[in-house]
């Protein structure tokens, strides 16, 4: 028997138990094995259950009659089916369901990592003590908790591989390799020396993480292909018995837009993350993905590529496993019956006020911290508790409580740190990763496929949030403040003579006391502008504003600068314009700065006219919302796609296209075309228009409301 202390990298299902990869304290990477039984549950008609029992008796499973809790139906008589073969549970279940489709199945699709965590109380990337007999795990116990604020860092070996250009545009000639401080390139000209070189690097470095650009969609498929062609064996896995797991590309519709997800290549025994094919990587990077893996129990490779929704579902499953609640295969809860009047009362979102249009001085923005999750925890809102008085803590609040506390703690630490502190970046990434889990948790209460969702609980949260916002408004008004704007969980307030942050502390204390939800000061604006609709200057638009805090920091929402389809050139100029305006300390000074902004705009237009703006700053990015053939009148993006299609490129809905506005037949020139656009062909007028609009947005607020002439 030997004892090992280390970090848990990954867990996989095998036909006889599971495989664990552990990064030991002494630097060794250990491949360990463990016996592991898993159990699924079947409920329903007694006669059918009896038949299923007979059917299963022939198989390598243990059967038992027992009672177990369904979240909504309570205790149920179930048949427990236990197998020592975790790798084939899906097959076992599929056979069973084919024979007995009308029975209810539970705990059939729980990821193996979650079962392992629930049983051992360890967590992914966590420290643990393992007692071994050979490579077989006898016992494993946790030495850390996923809720630790400052986990001991893992000494990960990270190998970065990136081609010098986007392989979808041009064939790369070099692969940049980076490890620690060393950087070099491998030539992609001929496969054989390249593969031999890369293989040697892999063996020498033995990385825990291969971080790539285009690894999923280009590098790994290429490596596999070359390896087959040349006969040079190259297993990218640390686990020699496994091959690379690949998943196909797909397009799907979510949150009002079509999204494209490229093919994926997953590794065993080490991780592969493709920075260009990882959903939220840009948002919080490796630190964030690791933080999510730690708290959700989904492996790092998966978590980096999946939406936070998958993470929160995993956390709910984990809570269910730990509390002996069965996880149904499908959502069972449909919307309850309501009268029209009840529907009208219930079917609302968060409270959104129309702001008071124009420029305002000395305005404080105060935000409820993680308002929706805080409501779920404080008011015990969960699909099985909604509508019940004095229910015990529900599944959702139980899942969220620690997550919420951890995020608040991280935020508090961050607010005390100097912004230049080296820990800030990492803590921010981790706080942001947790924030996304909290954000989607609310959506999943009402999501049609969420297993622990029920629309009434979703509605209960928004109803409570509207009530709390109104309470906050009343408290503010009682204390003499004007509420300029309210948006779901934040308020903009103003009062004559109030300008220091501390002036707003009594208000925040009063709101916190009244609502029971923590509230924080985002900052005090020297001035902030709430915008009017472009269509009618008398109509305010919620959540479109820009302003300068007292330290000169800008904050802007909903304007061109925030939109991904705005060209870099326009964004740069608009930001410069805002920086000029940010020097103004009052709304009056703001107006004095407007001529400077106009000069800036004229200069920018001249630069464009004489061809001094780099073309890449003028690139427009738009998404294809459907297949090219489906367009009756092609959008600019579709025109660009057609130009590229002529050169053999294929496009799926959800993919983005880049192009320039040009004076040719279609009005666009696809950016990825081989031949560059002649700069004389650039549609400068079209770009002027875009810039005019963006500048108008920032100077409009100081214009008084003008009535058309000869009105009355």
């Amino acid at each position: 028997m030997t004892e090992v202390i280390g970090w848990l990298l990954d867990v996989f299902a095998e036909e006889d138990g599971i495989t664990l990869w552990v990064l030991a304290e002494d630097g060794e990477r250990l491949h360990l094995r463990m016996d592991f039984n898993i159990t699924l549950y079947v409920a329903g008609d007694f006669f059918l259950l009896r038949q299923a029992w007979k059917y299963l008796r022939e198989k390598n499973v243990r059967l038992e009659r027992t009672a177990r809790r369904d979240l909504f139906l309570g205790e149920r008589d179930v048949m427990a089916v236990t197998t020592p073969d975790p790798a084939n549970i899906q097959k076992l279940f599929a056979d069973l369901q084919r024979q007995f489709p009308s029975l209810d199945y539970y705990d059939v699709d729980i990821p193996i990592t979650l079962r392992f965590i629930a049983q051992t109380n360890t967590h992914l990337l966590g420290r643990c003590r393992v007692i071994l007999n050979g490579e077989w795990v006898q016992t494993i116990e946790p030495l850390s908790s996923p809720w630790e604020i400052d986990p001991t860092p893992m000494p990960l070996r990270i190998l970065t591989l990136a081609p010098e250009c986007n392989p979808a545009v041009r064939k790369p000639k070099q692969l940049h390799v980076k490890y620690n401080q060393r950087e070099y390139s491998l030539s992609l000209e001929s496969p054989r020396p390249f593969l031999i070189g890369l293989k040697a690097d892999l063996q020498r470095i033995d990385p825990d993480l291969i971080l790539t650009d285009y690894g999923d969609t280009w590098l790994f498929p290429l490596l596999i292909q070359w390896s087959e062609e040349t006969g040079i064996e190259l297993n990218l896995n640390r686990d020699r018995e496994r091959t690379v797991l690949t998943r196909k590309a797909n397009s799907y519709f979510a949150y009002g837009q079509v999204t494209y997800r490229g093919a994926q290549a997953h590794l065993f025994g080490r991780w592969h993350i493709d920075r260009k094919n990882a959903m939220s990587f840009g948002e919080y990077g490796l630190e964030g993905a690791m933080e999510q893996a730690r708290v959700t129990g989904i492996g790092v490779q998966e978590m980096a590529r999946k939406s936070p929704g998958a993470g929160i579902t995993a956390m709910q499953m984990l809570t269910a496993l730990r509390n002996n609640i069965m996880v149904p295969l499908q959502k069972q809860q449909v919307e309850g019956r309501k009268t029209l009047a009840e529907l009208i009362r219930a079917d609302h979102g968060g409270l959104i006020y129309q702001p008071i249009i124009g420029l305002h001085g000395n305005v404080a923005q105060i935000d409820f911290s993680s308002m929706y999750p805080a409501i779920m925890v404080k008011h015990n809102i969960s699909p099985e508790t909604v509508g019940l008085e004095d229910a015990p803590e529900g599944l959702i609040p139980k899942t969220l409580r620690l997550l919420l506390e951890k995020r608040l703690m991280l935020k508090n630490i961050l607010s005390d740190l100097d912004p230049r502190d080296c820990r800030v970046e990492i803590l921010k990434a981790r706080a942001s990763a947790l924030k996304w889990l909290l954000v989607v948790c609310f959506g999943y209460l009402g999501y049609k496929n969420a297993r622990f969702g029920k629309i009434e609980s979703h509605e209960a949260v928004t109803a409570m949030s509207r009530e709390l916002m109104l309470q906050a408004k009343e408290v503010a008004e009682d204390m003499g403040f004007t509420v300029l704007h309210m948006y779901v969980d934040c308020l903009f307030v103003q009062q004559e003579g109030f300008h220091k942050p501390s002036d707003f502390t009594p208000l925040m204390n009063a709101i916190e006391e009244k609502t029971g939800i923590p509230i924080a000061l985002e900052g005090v604006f020297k001035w902030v502008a709430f915008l009017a609709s472009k269509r009618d200057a008398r109509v305010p638009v919620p959540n479109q504003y820009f302003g300068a805090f007292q330290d000169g920091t800008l904050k802007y929402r909903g304007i061109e600068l925030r939109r991904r389809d705005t060209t870099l050139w326009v964004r740069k100029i608009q930001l410069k314009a805002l920086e000029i305006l940010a020097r103004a300390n009052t709304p009056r000074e703001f107006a004095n700065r407007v001529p400077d902004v106009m000069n800036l705009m004229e200069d920018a237009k001249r630069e464009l006219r004489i061809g001094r703006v780099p073309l890449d700053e003028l690139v427009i990015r738009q998404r294809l919302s459907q297949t090219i053939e489906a367009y009756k009148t092609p959008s600019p993006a579709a025109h660009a796609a057609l130009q590229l299609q002529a050169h053999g490129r294929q496009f799926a809905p959800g993919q983005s296209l880049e192009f320039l506005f040009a004076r040719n037949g279609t009005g666009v020139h696809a950016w990825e075309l081989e031949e560059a656009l002649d700069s004389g062909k650039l549609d400068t007028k079209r770009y002027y228009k875009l810039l005019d609009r963006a500048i108008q947005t920032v100077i409009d607020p100081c214009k008084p409301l003008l009535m058309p002439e000869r009105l009355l």
Partner: protein
Amino acid sequence: MGRTLVTITQLLNETEANLSAFRRTLRRSDQYIFDGLFAAARRHIAAIGQAESLLPFESALLAMLLEQSKEIAVLEQKVEELIKKNSG
């Protein structure tokens, strides 16, 4: 996302569209005032929503009246100030 009923914003847009023939028949100067009524209603979308009425347009009409009364109150105040200034 995922809502069953139309939102108040949608409702106002639809009502405005249904009244397009009415609006078109008005003189241009009156059209501007007419648009102003809808602009007034749009300033109170949150309140119209919170009213949870089966006939939300009733609340929208009330919002228009409210903005009008507000404007009258502001004008009254201005007139009073002017009178005071002139008599003083």
